């Protein structure tokens, strides 16, 4: 197991290098230059600036310089954001984004699993219909609409939470809920389908024949088996949360990283684009590793047996 994880971590670094390389060259193909007011700049000024940022060197030299810096943990200096080092820019802003992302993930998957399981156990009753209705609503209404609804009722009318402010845990609740709606709906729908399938399987009938009550059967046998395919969608869901958080961050004025990413692309801020791309890729690769390890924990059939499970 340890050997497998170490191997996977090595692959994460190799993948990151490939991502960095591809992004680096693709980025240079972006139209325009990093200078927003190029028309006002003289040729000399541009030459001096290019020299300062190393943009006058051949492409491969630039690439080499960047990769060497990357290996030393140096992501370069942002062109746009007050000449801040990209590492500083990211570390300052990543916290809030990670927090609402993770909270949304936890709320979404846990509630989704619960809702889906209840719908499956009570299938074809009014409980199932209500749960299905919620899932459809959660999936089809965009999260920024939810955000505004939450702001209006819970913050503006009832004044339970702040409207748009970043100050402690209470201010992270509304954005997390707004962000959690889509993953919650997806998980619930997926969970219901799986659970309905599992509940009609032979081993559930055998569990019933042992004398387990229907709720015991669900808790001890059906839940775990239904979770196996649900784990699969957690990876793509994490991606959706990361990229989708930008709008939510804007609505709730959260000093997160989503805004920087969009701005950096629009302004050809090469080092920031690179830094954030690598960061997102790294986060994704780690999530996929965690998902794969989770698989093994839930399903013994795909447990990685380096010690040899069979005789």
């Amino acid at each position: 197991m340890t050997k497998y994880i170490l191997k996977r971590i090595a692959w994460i670094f190799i993948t990151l290098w490939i991502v960095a390389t591809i992004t680096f060259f693709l980025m240079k193909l972006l139209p325009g230059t990093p200078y927003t007011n190029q028309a006002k700049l003289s040729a000399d000024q541009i030459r001096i600036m290019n020299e300062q940022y190393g943009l006058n060197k051949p492409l491969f030299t630039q690439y080499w310089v960047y990769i060497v810096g990357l290996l030393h943990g140096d992501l370069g200096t942002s062109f746009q954001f007050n000449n801040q080092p990209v590492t500083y820019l990211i570390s300052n802003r990543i916290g809030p984004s990670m927090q609402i992302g993770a909270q949304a993930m936890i709320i979404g998957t846990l509630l989704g699993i619960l809702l889906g399981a209840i719908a499956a156990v009570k299938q074809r009753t009014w409980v199932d219909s209500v749960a299905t209705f919620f899932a459809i609503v959660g999936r089809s209404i965009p999260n920024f609409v939810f955000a505004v609804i939450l702001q209006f009722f819970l913050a503006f009318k009832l004044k339970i939470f702040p409207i748009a402010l970043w100050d402690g845990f209470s201010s992270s609740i509304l954005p997390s809920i707004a962000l959690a709606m889509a993953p919650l709906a997806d998980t619930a729908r997926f969970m219901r389908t799986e659970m309905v399938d599992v509940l009609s399987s032979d081993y559930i009938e055998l569990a019933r024949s042992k004398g387990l009550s229907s709720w015991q059967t669900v808790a001890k046998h059906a839940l775990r088996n239904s979770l196996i395919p649900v784990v699969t969608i957690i990876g793509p869901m994490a991606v959706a949360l990361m990229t989708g958080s930008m709008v939510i961050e804007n609505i709730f004025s959260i000093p997160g990283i989503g805004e920087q990413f969009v701005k950096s692309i629009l302004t050809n801020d090469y080092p920031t684009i690179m830094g954030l791309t690598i960061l997102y890729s790294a986060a994704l690769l780690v999530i996929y590793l965690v998902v794969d390890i989770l698989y093994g924990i839930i399903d013994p059939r795909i447990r990685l047996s380096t010690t040899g499970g069979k005789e």
Partner: protein
Amino acid sequence: MEKILDVKDLEINFHTFAGDVKAIRDVSFHLNKGETLAIVGESGSGKSVTVRSIMGLLANNSNVPNGQIMFKDQDLLKISARQMEKIRGNDISMIFQDPMTSLDPTMPIGKQVAEPLLIHNHMSRAKAMERAEEVLELVGIPNAKNRIKDYPHQFSGGQRQRIVIAIAIVNYPEILIADEPTTALDVTIQSQIIELMKELQDKIETSIIFITHDLGVVAGIADRVAVMYAGKIIEYGSVDEIFYDPRHPYTWGLLNSMPTLESKKLYAIPGTPPNLLNPPKGDAFAPRNEYAMAIDYEAMPPFFKVTDTHYAATWLLHPDAPKVQPPAEILRRHELYHKYLAEQAKGGVPADAE
């Protein structure tokens, strides 16, 4: 002999979009203590539905308009779901057909075997695991001690069926229901499982209801046999009576379609079973029966007594019915049987009939 289970006038319908399917039509039978009763019949004849009603595991769209299932002075059809849960896996348990799908793939087998003990006996976890290990050893899982933490996928099909059996017998049930336990296994494993069940029956003194469509398996394990067709029992008797002196044309057809060493061509009963959405008013087998008489289409035959233990529901046994010649294979069986009975009457060593 003491009756441990008594099923009376059982009727079961399944509600479908097309209407009510009358899956079980007035079935009565009983199980004596310590015996093995085989229920045979083709797919869809109602064997599985009958035993699932005993276990209280019928599908949601079923209803039981009539009948009684008496076990220990209580009617299993009338007791609450909670009471039924106390009986299931404790007094009555079940072995399922397909060992590849009847074990939970995500739970170690030791835990699966120990589960009934934990529910019914409030045993400590450690003690239950110890018992599970003993029972796994008993059903022939080699090296059970080191394998209780293994998962189902680490066992072969035959071993998995042994584990399923271990789960069923771990609480020493009074009634063991086996729903085609050998159908999904290959022939050599089949005979091992049958042997195991016979051994276990002696060891734990249980009564068995054995469901199968394989008459060869029946001969090896049953004391008594009930033959089902289209939701009804049409003939029942001791295993010898059914195999060597059958009276219902359907039983003739079943036995005739069993390959023997002499048979050159395999016989098949012509036609298909009736649709139980609208069951026929007469004998359901009549359209496929070459011995059918006019009355077979008009009225359902009652049970006619052949011996004290042997009854068959066919108009052919009515005193006014014409004598018919059963198929050659059945006559051959008759002959063997009478030879065997004669020898027994002489007090000679009861030679094996076949």
